[in-house]
């Protein structure tokens, strides 16, 4: 992979209005086509890092560049439509049908109606959902189906970058495993630049090109899955130990 940076954090810090520092001096470069997993326990700053990328949060210090342009110079609406965003299932619009949810970004981008419809059926197929589900509402779907709709919605306008915030976190283990494998297959075809947040080391090892381990708002390690398991770094070792060393090496 040629080192082609898509997202670059340079000395980025983020402090809340009441002066709590959630991100401290973050330096991180995310390359085109990779799946970078932000791993860490609750409150380590993973989600905050993600929200800085699509400018839902604005860095209080440092600079963040997306596609070689500082986020503060981007038109924020443009930036967000360039970036697909998947969050836990709550993010679907409950009053929109599946088709309307998936077609949302193309619609607000004023694509012609037929093109939106065509795109919606392509997307349903891509994520393995029956075309008959298009007219349903999110509440009429299973958790796994809802999450597939979430992925389809994020991909609908074909954004080069995809942010995923614990997208499979609320699913049962079997559905989660299915979706993880579908995600791998999808990513092999689409080669998006993906930033994926999880606290599940197993998920990180399975999906990541590189794993960025975060702790208290700092990046503490940036390693490939293989390196991660063998790292002598005490913080990494602690994380690996928490998930049970032996079991992990047997994970396919």
């Amino acid at each position, binding site marked *: 992979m040629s080192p082609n940076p898509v997202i670059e954090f340079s000395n980025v810090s983020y402090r809340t209005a009441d002066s709590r520092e959630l991100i401290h001096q973050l330096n991180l470069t995310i390359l085109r086509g990779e799946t970078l997993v932000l791993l860490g326990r609750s409150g380590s700053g993973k989600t905050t890092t993600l929200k800085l990328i699509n400018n839902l949060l604005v860095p209080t210090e440092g600079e963040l560049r997306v596609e070689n342009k500082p986020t503060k110079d981007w038109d924020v609406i443009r930036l*967000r439509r360039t970036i697909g965003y998947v*969050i836990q299932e709550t993010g679907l619009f409950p009053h929109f049908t599946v088709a309307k949810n998936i077609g949302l970004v193309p619609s*607000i981008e004023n694509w012609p109606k037929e093109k939106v419809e065509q795109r919606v059926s392509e997307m349903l197929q891509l994520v393995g959902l029956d075309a008959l589900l298009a007219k349903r509402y999110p*509440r009429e779907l299973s958790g796994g189906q809802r999450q597939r709709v979430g992925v389809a919605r994020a991909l609908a306008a074909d954004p080069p970058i995809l942010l995923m915030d614990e997208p499979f976190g609320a699913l049962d283990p079997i559905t989660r495993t299915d979706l993880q494998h579908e995600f791998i297959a999808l990513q092999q075809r689409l080669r998006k630049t993906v930033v994926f947040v999880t606290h599940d080391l197993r998920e990180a090892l399975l999906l990541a090109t590189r794993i960025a381990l975060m702790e208290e708002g700092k990046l503490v390690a940036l390693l490939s899955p293989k390196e991660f398991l063998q790292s002598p770094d005490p913080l990494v070792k602690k994380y690996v130990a928490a998930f049970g060393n032996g079991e992990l090496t047997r994970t396919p």
Partner: protein
Amino acid sequence: MNVWQFIAQNWDQVLHLTLEHLWLAGFATFLAAIVAIPLGILISRKPILSGPVITTANVIQTIPSLALFGFLLTAPWIGERSGRLAILALALYALLPLIRNTYVGIKGVDPAVIEAARGMGMTNGQILWQVEVPLSLSVIVAGLRVAIVLSIGITTIAAAIGAGGLGEFIFRGLAMVNNAVILAGAIPAALLAITADASLGWLEKRLTAH
């Protein structure tokens, strides 16, 4: 003469007063809605304003209706025509449930949904009209339901200042000590309120389906 005989003999007047009643209550609620719903949206955006606005509407609501009619009678342009006055007073009463429900409804939309909308690049206007308003519509309609039922009730009192409506029968019956006349006003007024409540309740339920 019992109430049914009275209604049968004076059906044209009953109909006229019922329609007048509906007009007063309906138009007042409509006026209140076009002020209160945007105001409710505004205070959901500007939290600093929410306290003062809701408190003001609350204070208006606590003024006894007959007293409010009395106050307004002394006002220059408004006091000249009782219909005008009644509509204004009724609209003032309808403000609170409408403002409050719009505000609560919009504030009650799941923040995760709003954040997803922002994250996908929807503009503030798109978020308001395509997400927040549709998702709070059932709560806003619930406010409308309270407002219209309240207005229909208070409109009966508006007859005391000569604004018309079914209260005319009630007050006339009271003066004549004639129960049939009182009931000829009271029964249709109650039916109006019940019908309005039931139909808006039905609408509210339909909108809550999501």
